[in-house]
């Protein structure tokens, strides 16, 4: 018979997303989630204590005048399993963190519990893209690219218009599109490379510098502006530096006043848990909500490993690229009000089609 605490513990296996507030180190978030889970596990009512037979010495009744000692058996609860004796049943819950967010940023932080930590590793290696919303402000340049740093220089920005900003963003995006193909580790002189490039499936595999796959301005109100970025293999410092470089291209200076991750692979900000919901019940619900996505990630990694033994390198790369596309497929919806239509990527090769290919 499993106790309620053990049943609850077995449900804690999988991935879920949490909204990390700004100003908090990601480790504190992970620690508080772990302590909340442990609190819930250890506050479950303990099972009824085991009874053991104990022979107790009882003195004889009034009838016997002799000094006879009678042993009588009785069922007595043992103290070996008492929580005050053993201490709390659960000391540790394995909670892992996916792509980390530094203290200045906020947004979606993917955590894995129990068996989900293995899948978390696959998610990190699978080159999924992440969406960010960057708030910028023209007119200042600071030492750490944020609005809280030491001001190094102040410049005018009245010459900046939305038209010029969009031209600069188009140029940056062009350079990043080129980098996408250059780091895809495919020989560009082959017909397969051409086929992949036509379908837009050339993607950086292995080590690559941060590459932006999409960049747009969603709000412009000088000196403040907001950019929406879709990127792969990035750090938050790189994104703040991006804001600074946009300012330099426009012959002024800019600082970043906020970095907010709105999506990490298939985990979106609408489904991320806020601080009030960092309790065991909500977490288990969230794990159940993301179980489909988790299964897809696990499957794609298993497929990559088995396929690698059978096929040629280019075929494996193509199929893993299409797996990554599947994981990324849900999130191409553009969230801002300036987009007129929701444009989806062309449907990639599904798993079954991929298997019948060879």
């Amino acid at each position, binding site marked *: 018979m499993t106790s309620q605490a053990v049943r609850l513990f077995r449900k804690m296996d999988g991935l879920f997303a949490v909204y990390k507030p*700004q*100003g908090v180190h990601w480790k504190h978030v992970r620690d508080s989630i772990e302590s909340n889970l442990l609190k819930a596990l250890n506050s479950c009512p303990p099972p009824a204590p085991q009874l053991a037979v104990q022979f107790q010495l009882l003195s004889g009744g009034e009838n016997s005048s002799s000094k006879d000692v009678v042993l009588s058996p009785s069922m007595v609860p043992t103290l070996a399993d008492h929580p005050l004796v053993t201490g709390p049943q659960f000391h540790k819950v394995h909670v892992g963190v996916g792509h980390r967010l530094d*203290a*200045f940023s906020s947004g979606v932080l993917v955590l894995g519990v129990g068996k989900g930590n293995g899948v978390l590793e696959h998610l990190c290696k699978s080159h999924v893209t992440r969406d960010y919303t960057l708030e910028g402000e023209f007119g200042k340049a600071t030492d750490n690219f944020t*609005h*809280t740093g*030491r*001001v190094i*220089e*102040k*410049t*005018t920005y*009245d*010459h900046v218009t939305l038209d*010029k900003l969009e*031209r*600069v963003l*188009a*140029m940056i*995006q*062009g*350079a990043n*599109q*080129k980098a996408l193909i250059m780091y895809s580790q495919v020989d*560009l*002189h*082959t*017909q397969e490379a*051409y*086929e992949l*490039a*036509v*379908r*837009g499936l050339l993607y950086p595999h292995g080590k690559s510098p941060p590459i932006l796959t*999409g*960049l*747009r301005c969603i709000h412009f109100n000088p000196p403040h502006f907001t950019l929406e970025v*879709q990127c792969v293999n990035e750090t938050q410092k790189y994104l703040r530096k991006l804001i600074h470089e946009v300012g330099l*291209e*426009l*012959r*002024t200076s800019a600082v970043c006043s906020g970095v907010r991750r709105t999506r990490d692979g298939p985990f979106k900000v609408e489904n991320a848990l806020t601080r009030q919901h960092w309790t065991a019940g909500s977490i288990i619900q969230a794990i159940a909500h993301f179980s489909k996505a988790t299964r897809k990630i696990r499957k794609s990694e298993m497929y990559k490993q088995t396929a690698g033994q059978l096929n040629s390198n280019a075929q494996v790369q193509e199929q893993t690229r299409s797996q990554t596309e599947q994981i990324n497929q849900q999130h*191409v919806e553009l969230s801002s009000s300036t987009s007129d239509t929701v*444009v*989806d*990527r062309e449907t990639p090769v599904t798993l079954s089609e991929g298997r019948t290919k060879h």
Partner: protein
Amino acid sequence: MALVSIRSCGRCGFLLGLRAYATRPVGTPRKREQQDDTPVFQYVGQHRKPQGKVFVWGFSYTGALGIPSFVVPDSGRKKPRKYQLTPYRLDTEQKISSAACGYGFTLLACNSRDLTKLWGMGLNKDSQLGFQRTQHDRHKSYDYVLEPSPVSLPLVNPQETRVLQVSCGRAHSLVLTDSEGVFSMGNNAYGQCGRKIVEDEVYRFVFQQYKQHAVTHGLGHHSKASCPVPVGGDLAGVKVQQVATYGDCSLAVSTEGQVFGWGNSEYLQLASVTEATQMSSPRLLPLRGVGRVRQAACGGTQVAVLNEEGEVFVWGFGILGKGPKLSESAIPERVPATFFGRSEFNPTVKVSSIRCGLNHFAAITDRGELFVWGKNVRGCLGIGKHDDQYFPWRVTVPGHVTDVACGVDHMVALVKTII
């Protein structure tokens, strides 16, 4: 924060020896008094307009790039640079409005009324850059011009006439002015300069003016023609908006969007109308699936057209831009728009102009990006490597590309800055 903590220490008494570390929580801005002292710099005024720049790349030993230090280094430690594999900025005194590349030479023209309207650099053995008088001998002309040097035109009104367009061939050049017709200079062995052919002519000092429109040969016979004559065939009576030629094949685009072709068809350029290898009079090309054609460009063995929707169609022989397998095609093949930057973030990108060199193509999109593909002859593609490019590849140019001129082994791009 630091002040607050000292005050509380004061209440408890300094004897406690409390050291207050001034740690601010992350995310709170510093005090305002520190921010207002820094001076404000202005790098760009409010009404600054974008400037025009010229970028060159390719084979530099002929001097066609116009940078003398690539051929003759000015400092002892530098080495001569034979190939310039990425775009390099060329300093020009005036804003260049038109550029043309020939075989080993370049002409740049400025649309102004100044006395110097035309600059040339590169090979000058056939006087394709006019007479460039040497320093030592007044009757001799330079064979190689390493820097953009003024080309003097014998204009009647040099302070009123403007140069509209320049065009270069293998060893000759043509200059179109707004009121004084066309000027030609250079090699005339086949009558390409529009004047009478003189056997064994020495081309070093000759200049000829001719008052007709652009010279073509599609006259229905195979001998040389040394005077401009109107072209017949299917083109009789048709209003032509653009003519393109490079090697032996020519295309003309009418104002209705139809394409007429004549010339060499050895590489299936005109295979839609003829099986022969040559066609000496223009015929209408029935290109299926192309739509209204806006612009055509001819290369040595390949041909490209651009239609009204901004799609590029290529056919002929060589590296056509659809992978290494497609090396020959008799029917127009569309180059997929994903190569030109079309994606879900930019669904409306289209190509606004195409140009052809001898073995390569160049396309400019409406967002000001330059894409090249084809054979990389001596680094003429400008992509940073010597490898051939089998599908369109972006050239990194700092600015918006407005026009590009393709030569055999070098290219010139006219670029507008962003700010």
